[in-house]
């Protein structure tokens, strides 16, 4: 079991996972499964963004779904109403959510904790209302159709599910790679220091606003990119994209996977997306099962799947270390085992 854990956290496991992802469309029994997986990947990208601001920087952003919608709508409006082709609109989508993220960030990040959370909740709701009411721009409740699919430059047709799957996979791999880079870099440490406490971070010469805004903008870029990919996949967007439920969903994915960990967002998103699909047969009863499930998970596995796994492995590591230096004082050893590892250790 422990050996298995070691393998699972090794470099080989990551390559194997990538390989699995690459051949998944060949193993899948039909296109629907590929489609679900692709949509899980799109959500996962957005959840990675949430992980930056919430997991690493400690600010619970409840407008994340709103920024996702901004990305989707930018792409939709530019391609459907203004005839842009996909990729320029895609860049514009990332840019517009970043710009809005910047503006919201410089106001909201002065607020602390729940104030920030509820402020962003309201921002998210305002985004929803604007998408719903500003008809000249967004077509209001009618939504926007005929959105361009990603342009394959004549080589591939991304309106087909399988090519699109690989496209999203590419973005996802990049998103994770960058996240890993970030979290182990000086910048990532800076964000963690802020999560740990504003005062101390400031006394270390860290510019709070600048770093928080940076993290916020980065997270909105992730959201915007995911939103744009989503629009390119579904090819229709409506104001419901900005529904607060999407934000709740993403937080759930993050928490189930493991907040502040590198692979938590991926595991959580894929896991829940498939569980939701398979609970479909329960129809109205679905939430009766899903709600308590969520509660149980939060109570009994508060650090999520990946977080718990890492904690468990960390303990085993400590025990292994103990076996080597058997002379250590018994107390201090058990102490090591009782401490909790965190996302930080994953990269340390």
């Amino acid at each position: 079991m422990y050996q298995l854990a070691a393998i699972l956290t090794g470099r080989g496991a990551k390559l194997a996972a990538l390989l699995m992802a690459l051949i998944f469309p060949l193993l899948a029994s039909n296109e629907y499964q590929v489609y679900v997986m692709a949509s899980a990947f799109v959500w996962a990208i957005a959840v990675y963004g949430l992980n930056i601001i919430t997991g690493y920087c400690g600010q619970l952003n409840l407008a994340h779904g709103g920024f996702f919608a901004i990305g989707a709508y930018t792409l939709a409006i530019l391609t459907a109403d203004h005839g842009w082709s996909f990729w320029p609109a895609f860049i514009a989508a990332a840019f517009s959510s970043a710009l809005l993220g910047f503006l919201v960030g410089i106001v909201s990040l002065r607020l602390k904790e729940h104030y920030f959370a509820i402020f962003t909740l309201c921002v998210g709701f305002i985004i929803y209302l604007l998408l719903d009411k500003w008809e000249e721009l967004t077509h209001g409740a009618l939504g926007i159709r005929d959105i361009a699919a990603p342009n394959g430059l004549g080589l591939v047709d991304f309106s087909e599910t399988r090519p699109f799957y690989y496209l999203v996979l590419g973005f996802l791999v990049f998103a994770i790679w960058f996240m890993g880079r970030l979290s182990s870099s000086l910048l990532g440490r800076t964000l963690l220091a802020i999560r740990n406490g504003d005062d101390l971070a400031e006394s270390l010469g860290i510019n709070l606003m600048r770093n928080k805004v940076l993290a916020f903008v980065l997270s909105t870029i992730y959201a915007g990119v995911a939103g744009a990919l989503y629009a390119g996949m579904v090819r229709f967007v409506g104001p419901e994209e900005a529904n607060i439920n999407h934000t709740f969903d993403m937080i759930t994915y993050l928490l189930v996977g493991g907040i502040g960990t590198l692979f938590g967002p991926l595991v959580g998103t894929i896991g829940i997306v498939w569980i939701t699909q398979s609970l479909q047969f329960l129809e109205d009863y679905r939430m009766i099962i899903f709600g308590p499930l969520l509660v149980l998970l939060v109570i009994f596995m508060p650090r999520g799947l990946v977080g718990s796994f890492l904690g468990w492995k960390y303990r085993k590591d400590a025990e292994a270390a103990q076996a080597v230096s058997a002379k250590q004082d018994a107390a201090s050893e058990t102490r090591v085992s009782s401490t909790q590892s965190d996302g930080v250790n994953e990269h340390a």
Partner: protein
Amino acid sequence: MLQLDHVEVCYGAFKALKDVSMTVGQGELVVLLGANGAGKTTLFNAISGLIKPSAGDITVEGQSLTGAKPSAVVSAGVVQCPEGRKLFPQMSVMQNLLLGAYVHRRDKAGIQQKLREVLELFPILEDKKDQPAGSLSGGQQQMVAIGRALMGRPRLLLLDEPSLGLAPLVVKQVFETISRINRQGTSVLLAEQNAFAALKIAHRAYVIEGGRLVMEGDQAAMLGNEDVRKAYIGA
């Protein structure tokens, strides 16, 4: 008054207290000496019912309080003035003090009487009585905390490092106060780093190290003990 028999406390797998047996007699002032992390706070919290011992018995005046709820412990006359103060920061100083008398809430006259005594003890609190406790300086908050504990009319007062962060003048006053409270008949168990000052007013002392009681003795013996001097009094 208070008796601990083979008490053991665990945090997860870590044993913070191991086989602790001790007594505090009626009217006695007992000091608990120990370095940081020795387990003083843990011991206090176990007595107060904030954590449940994994083994052993705690009795107060013959009544078993092992695993009792904190409110039951307070009702039994054992009140703690905690490390870190644990005040109600947005409530006024006065409200903090009054809540200290929560278990005596029906006895209005008694509360007023006690309140006068406390304010006499710490006159500065009189000036600050309507200010939120959280806006007071560290030392002032410590006074509120002690005052709040006294409002509970303890028969056994547990004081966890009451001199932490206090000015020398105030430390002196605090120790005098403790001594006075004790002389008036309240038993006191005092955890301190400031061993010299504490021992000077104490009857007896225990030394705790790594969760185990390693030494016990009366005032003179402790003050005279070379190891104690070296470790806790300095020079």
